[in-house]
């Protein structure tokens, strides 16, 4: 058994044998009870209860109200717009992520680290500012405002603005999953493929992609969750026109502000379900990736 495998086996074995089984790293029963009580209470109050509450409130008035809230034409159009925005934003950011990772992880050039920082930029910008920038460019008083008006093109308070804002806030997700992984993998395998006569695309499809597929999937899952759930940025550019420019999160806000709590939580429960599916997929992808690492180090 190689060193890497035994290390991994130790890593995968439960914390019971790793820490609680060793005298030096075992905390006293009292400490353990206290840490568990405090941290799990914190977890329950700030994370678990809000999640449970979404579903409890959604079904408080029964199935009929729940179904009615989701079958409402405005809700259906909000769901459709949310799916559309994600269907455009996710593939675009996927292509960008792959392209950026190829350039950054496979070549050396000046300013590489700075480029990574710039790619992360949308994460540190407030969503409200992210929406505002597009208003400043495409809005009625923006850079292209009068030009767009002359040709009767609507971007702000219309679907294109929503798509743009969604692209902005989900911009780094795929790139930031791929770049560190491809950097750590190195470029030897791809170089070997090219030297043996494979074309660039063949190398990408047969060597690079299989090596990064789990990270890629992970990035896409997170990108999609954020794309469907974005609120602040989309809120600024949407104009909140019912049935036209409302996404699901915006629809939740409108229903909530109209005191239609059961309906608001019904639509919210769909988004919460999406979040749970996202977390489940994430756990699955992590498990698969860990299994692959284990397989690699055995073989």
């Amino acid at each position, binding site marked *: 058994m190689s060193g890497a495998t035994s290390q991994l086996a130790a890593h995968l074995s439960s914390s019971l044998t790793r820490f609680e089984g060793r005298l*030096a790293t075992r905390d006293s029963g009292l400490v353990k009870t206290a*840490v568990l009580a*405090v941290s799990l209470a914190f977890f329950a109050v700030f994370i678990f209860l809000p999640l449970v509450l979404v579903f409890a409130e959604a079904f408080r008035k029964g199935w009929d109200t729940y179904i009615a809230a989701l079958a409402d034409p405005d809700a259906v159009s909000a769901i459709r717009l949310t799916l559309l925005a994600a269907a455009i934003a996710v593939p675009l950011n996927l292509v960008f992520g792959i392209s950026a990772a190829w350039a950054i992880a496979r070549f050396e050039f000046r300013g590489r680290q700075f480029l990574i920082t710039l790619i992360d930029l949308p994460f540190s*910008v*407030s969503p409200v500012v992210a929406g505002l*920038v597009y208003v*400043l460019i495409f809005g009625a008083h923006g850079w292209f405002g009068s030009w767009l008006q002359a040709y009767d093109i609507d971007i702000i308070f219309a679907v294109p603005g929503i798509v743009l804002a969604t692209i*902005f806030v989900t911009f780094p997700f795929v790139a930031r999953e791929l770049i560190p992984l491809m950097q750590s993998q190195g470029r030897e395998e791809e170089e070997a493929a090219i030297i043996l006569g494979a074309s660039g695309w063949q190398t990408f499809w047969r060597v690079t992609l299989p090596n990064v597929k789990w990270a890629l999937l992970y990035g896409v899952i997170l990108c999609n969750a954020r794309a469907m759930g974005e609120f602040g940025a989309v809120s600024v550019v949407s104009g909140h026109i019912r049935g036209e420019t409302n996404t699901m*999160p915006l629809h939740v806000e409108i229903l909530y502000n109209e005191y239609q709590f059961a309906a608001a939580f019904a639509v919210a429960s769909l988004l*919460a379900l999406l979040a749970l599916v996202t977390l489940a997929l994430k756990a699955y992808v992590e498990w698969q990736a860990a299994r692959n690492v284990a397989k690699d180090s055995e073989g």
Partner: protein
Amino acid sequence: MSGANRVLPGFGLSLGYTLAYLSLIVLIPLSAVFVKAAAMDFERFWSVVASERVVATYKLSFGMSLLAASINVVFGLLLTWAIVRYSFPGKKIVDALIDLPFALPTAVAGIALTALYAPNGWIGQILEPLGIKIAFGPYGVLVALIFIGVPFVVRTVQPILEDFDAGFEEAAASLGATRWQTVRRVVFPALLPALLTGFALAFARGVGEYGSVIFIAGNIPFVSEITPLMIITRLEEFDYQGATAIASVMLVISFVLLLVINLLQGWVARSTPRAI
């Protein structure tokens, strides 16, 4: 490395596309804020960003983000410790749900926290007789920012604690240190860079957070208005200059925080002993 001895193809294409897409989607739009703000005369700019109401929002946004990030460091560390070091029923589910604030849309988090902490909510009705009012006030902002910040601290500290070699603790114990001394003098210093990074990430996210906060805050001027809300308020008044001025201040703050986070992450990378 010169272009001539590159084996792999596609450098020009991938870097060109990356730079073009980055410029179109992120850099040029963000520069619009500064171009527009620079076009304002300074007195007008200053009267917006230093007005009493806006300054009150900086104080609230910064104060509550600092407080929330601090609370997250303390409880996040305990939670990470429990997940990494102990076994308990439901641990896998707790571990997976830590990321809920990343995955749950902020508007959903906002209305859920509001319903939970409102005077008639599950938690609110326990706190109300004690005279503690959370929702529709500044502490509502705090609760929302705590929720948003949890995964930043846990997910930054967790890998460091998982990789921490228990041998150090055994060495400390065998040299006569008590368990508390070992944790405080041996384990804690190793976690410190990650804790600070988690703190900075949670803080930066808190300052810009909008969706989860506005439902629970009550948005009372001078009491519970956050800075991003002021941008929305100015926009709704069609005061684009005012909105831009406040946005430019927020952007500068974001850039400074990004720089600090980068430096901290460099510190984490350097101070973590590499496995061979």
